[in-house]
């Protein structure tokens, strides 16, 4: 039996009828067509599915869509505003923080939350903040530099 959910995704109000077992990531990808949120492990380990839920980075592969009733969600598609990249997105581009790009949306969401909580993190704090997100290509060094770039860019504004 389907249930109605009401929420806001990237600033747009949504009302949809969903099966109670529908995973949040499948709701975003299949129902709303927001395919920037990726599925990597299905078990909350890799972080590729990370989205912002009421200001908190969460892994959408292990949440049900019905759990986010009344919430505000921001996906990777909501990070660039008016054609301008979010500082973290800019950092990933400038510092070669990605190769295949599959983990990147989740990394960006998590890094954005990290910087909201700590505007000037040390390398160790960045590593700790990103430990729930896995990358197989880069070896992480450029990702850390991307976050550092975003921090200094934001501080300079």
């Amino acid at each position: 039996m389907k249930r109605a959910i009401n929420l806001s995704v990237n600033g747009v109000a949504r009302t949809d009828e969903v099966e109670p077992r529908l995973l949040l990531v499948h709701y975003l990808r299949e129902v709303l067509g927001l395919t920037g949120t990726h599925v990597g492990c299905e078990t909350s380990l890799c972080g590729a599915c990370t989205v912002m839920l009421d200001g908190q980075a969460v892994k959408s592969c292990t949440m049900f869509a019905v759990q986010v009733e009344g919430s505000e969600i921001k996906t990777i598609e909501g990070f660039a505003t008016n054609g301008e990249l979010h500082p973290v997105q800019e950092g990933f581009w400038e510092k070669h923080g990605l190769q295949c790009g599959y983990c990147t949306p989740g990394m960006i969401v998590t890094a954005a939350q990290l910087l909201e909580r700590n505007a000037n993190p040390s390398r160790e704090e960045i590593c700790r903040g990103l430990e729930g997100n896995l990358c197989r290509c880069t070896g992480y060094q450029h990702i850390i530099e991307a976050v550092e770039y975003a921090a200094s860019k934001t501080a300079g504004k």
Partner: protein
Amino acid sequence: MPNKYVGQPIKRTEDPRLIKGLAHYVDDIKLPDTLHVVFVRSVYAHARITSIDTADALAAPGVAAVYTGKDVAGIGPVPCAGALPGLKVPDHRVLAQDKVYFVGHPIAAIVATDRYAAKDAADLVMVDYEDLPVVVDVEEAANGGTVIHESFGDNIAYKLTSGEGDIDAAFASADRTVKQRILHTRLAPIAMEPRGVLARYFPGEEELTVWSSTQIPHLLRTQLAIMIGIPENKLRVITPEVGGGFGSKLNVYAEEALLGWISMQLGKPAKWIETRRENMQATIHGRGQVGDIEVAFKNDGTLTGLRYSVFADLGSYHQLLTPAIPTLTGLMLSGSYKIPAIQMNVTGCFTNKMATDAYRGAGRPEATYVVERGLDLVAVDLNMDPADVRRKNFPAADEFPFHTATGLDYDSGNYAAALDKAQGIANYAKLREEQKAARAEGRLVGIGISTYVEICALGPSQAMPAGGWESATVRIEPKGDSPHWRFAPRPGSGNFVCANCCRRTWRASQRCHGNSRRYGHSPIRNRNLW
């Protein structure tokens, strides 16, 4: 030619779509009326299938079709391109026939209107198994373990001896020898994006398009055309964004052929996205060698011979390059050193596991481990500094081109100078002093040294007669733009050389990658950074 791009830091043109979440990996491509496929896979590593009851699954909501081994016996076998003398090649069908050989072996394909419905129905398929003794240890497989493919009589897929020089004389004349067992642990490659396939057949045009998260769209097109039985010019393979491969997508998989065939049967697009559990079980694994190294050397540390006798854990079937991977180890066993005699003895064995195949270096890092471990053993045996043992055995700069006892010719190099430089940068002498001081305090500090030489971008040659060509076309459009079309996929690498050669701006060097309409090869072994 002025070098504006190669080796220069540059912002990649593909990044904006990737960092905005707007890029398309296979599962991001949506076609109307797409059917979703879920596989029923073996929970046993070795068993006889006594019955499969699909009636409940077929009656489940949303189910369009259920296929088992007997339905797809006509699809050609999953191909193996490793043509070794006397190689035993099991008949590798796209779904299990009467037996299952590894956990994850696909048994049935469920096709339904969405993936939840397909998964529900998959749970309703009743498979009865008669479990059989399992062989997971490669040495047990070689030495009297339960025979996996009964018609072969044993589990030895092939035996191969390679190398040059008089290995027996090398050991007979040596001052000293060392021997060591070494393991190259079997592992799962785990690309962040699992495999996935979307297939769409147009019955009127008789054209099949297959989108696959693959590293080899062109080879895949040729092989799928053979497997499915469709003219190659009616089949198009498209590789969209690929979320990492590491060799695991350098293959031709049963699911790719099945999805194409299912779309042809039902006249609708069909999609399968691998789960992580499937990825661990039924995407190729890497490494899996258990061997013994023996090194013969003189009292001054000069090597006279190296022997590596290894059991290669191939798994139950050959995938595309499975049996060939250990032969790449054999090619690289000389490492960066002059070793007058080298012998590699490979015993490739069937085990009740998924196949091993190309993973990150594909047999070559194994060789580095063998030869470097061997040199460390020599250093310990002679109480020599491991860097000095290495320096002692380098070919001198004026000895290049240098022929190795594995049959290769190294064209150029100055290894001693490179090691001197590395030791200088690392301040090696000081590190050794610090190590000594630390140990005096009871702290254990290790310093590891390894040199590395690799055969890359394998092209047609005596050492690798498997072909391997690329094509690329640069076209000037009527409007004057110059899009660069190249035809190998992009699992994370970039596009540098074309912009340089064409003296175009980086941005103008856009390209369409991973499209099988023009023949090419792959990004394997770092060959496509252009």
